[in-house]
């Protein structure tokens, strides 16, 4: 190979063992020895070791990225295992960071893993980002999405973005010098409560795999400087129709983060920006509530209580209290099925949707409606421990 005058970070030399390990890369012209050394010299930060973070980190580790940072403060639980493939059943209860680091080290002992056991915040983001070349965003909430974007723009690091909902995903590369940033696309987040999260809306288990691998592909291409990165393009992934569509993104000259007259010159309070104050409280916190023990006692005593289940039919099939099923969205047009003279207890999975139902019914003139605090999950925890939780 010809000597070059490139001033890239010193490309690590590969040992014979590494050469053997990466041979399928080394024999392709798009990677070769030079590309593999670039991968080894690269430092990539994954925000989150969850749905997107799992395939991302696994493939980057296998591909020979030299330094992989992971930011996560969560603990593995059973509901993660349907999609977060870096964790296994035996890891339930462990820190995701420890579980992930163990799998990654087992895949590639040459990998340098940096663990950040913290919630990414305006206080620590810039400091952490400075030690990396590329940031891959695998978080699950709007405040962190905007935080990652702004911190990427401020530190000049590309933001390899992916997000998912049910069976639909989005991917792009934001915050490169020439390309748009996340705020160019979405100047403002949705008000809280208007867009359901994966915990509320569900997600097809393979979808984060599909989208996370697209993110990993983009990371590798950026490191190699090969191919056409998703800069200025938003890839829409529809797993149900198995359709991939592409939209053009433009750098917005008026963007507050990366435009010509920038107003975001330091990190801000992203919870406030997203309309979330302190701990997330259910929107309708003021509605009359009934505890699960009280409901059980009164049902056993034969009180005249009408149990209204405002979940979806497929949730009713998982478990139910034998209540009358009217999904929250259908309540306005099916309100005639309810008798306002009777005492009504509304419930859902966790108590958020039913609080909305109670508020709606109160506005419609119902006087004797209660929200079952904690929903059917609380019932499963405290009344009937044999009931499945989901």
């Amino acid at each position: 190979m010809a000597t070059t005058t490139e001033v890239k970070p010193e490309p690590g030399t590969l040992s014979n063992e590494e050469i053997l390990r990466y041979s399928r890369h080394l024999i392709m012209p798009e990677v070769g020895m030079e590309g593999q050394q670039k991968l080894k010299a690269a430092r990539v930060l994954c925000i989150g070791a969850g749905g997107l973070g799992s395939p991302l980190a696994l493939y980057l580790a296998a591909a020979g990225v030299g330094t992989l940072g992971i930011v996560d403060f969560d603990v593995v639980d059973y509901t993660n295992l349907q999609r977060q493939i870096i964790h296994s059943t035996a890891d339930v209860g462990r820190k995701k960071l420890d579980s992930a680091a163990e799998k990654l080290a087992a895949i590639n002992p040459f990998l340098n893993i940096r663990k950040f056991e913290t919630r990414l915040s305006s206080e620590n983001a810039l400091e952490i980002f400075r030690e990396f070349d590329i940031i891959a965003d695998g978080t699950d909430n709007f405040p962190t999405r905007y935080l990652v974007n702004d911190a990427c723009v401020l530190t000049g690091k590309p933001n390899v973005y992916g997000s998912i909902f049910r069976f639909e995903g989005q991917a792009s590369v934001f915050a490169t010098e020439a390309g748009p940033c996340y705020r160019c696309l979405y100047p403002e987040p949705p008000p809280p409560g208007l867009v359901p999260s994966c915990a509320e809306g569900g997600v097809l288990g393979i979808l984060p795999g599909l989208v996370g691998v697209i993110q990993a592909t983009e990371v590798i291409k950026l490191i190699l400087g090969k191919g056409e990165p998703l800069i200025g393009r938003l890839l829409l992934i529809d797993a149900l129709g198995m359709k991939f569509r592409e939209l053009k993104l433009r750098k917005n000259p008026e963007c507050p983060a990366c435009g010509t007259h920038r107003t975001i010159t330091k990190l801000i309070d992203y919870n406030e920006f997203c309309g979330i104050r302190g701990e997330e409280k259910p929107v309708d916190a003021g509605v009359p509530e009934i505890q699960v023990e009280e409901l059980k006692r009164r049902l056993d005593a034969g009180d005249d209580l009408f149990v209204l289940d405002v979940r979806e039919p497929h949730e009713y099939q998982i478990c139910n209290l034998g209540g009358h099923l009217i999904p929250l969205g259908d309540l306005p047009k099916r309100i005639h099925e309810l008798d306002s003279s009777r005492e009504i207890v509304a419930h859902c999975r966790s108590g958020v949707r039913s609080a909305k139902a109670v508020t709606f019914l109160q506005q419609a003139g119902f006087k004797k409606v209660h929200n079952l605090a904690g929903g059917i999950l609380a019932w499963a925890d405290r009344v009937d421990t044999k009931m499945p939780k989901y």
Partner: protein
Amino acid sequence: MTKIHIPTPLRQYAGKQPAVEVKATTVGEALAGLVARHPDLRRHLYTDDGKLRAFVNVYVNDEDVRYLQKDATAVGDGDTISIVPSIAGGR
């Protein structure tokens, strides 16, 4: 007819359909037709003063209407309008 792609999070307000066909000559007309047919969509697409919400982008084919003629952007037979709201899931 112009096809309007409805994104997953908004399908529950549009009769669970992935796409709706409308007859329109501009983006504004097409969206008005959509909202007239599915009134529950209105508050998800527009603010109280009738402006398109900042976390909802509208595309004609692969172009953002903010960089075309916004609501006045012409559409015709065979054009596809996409409503693309921000989603944040990742875990």
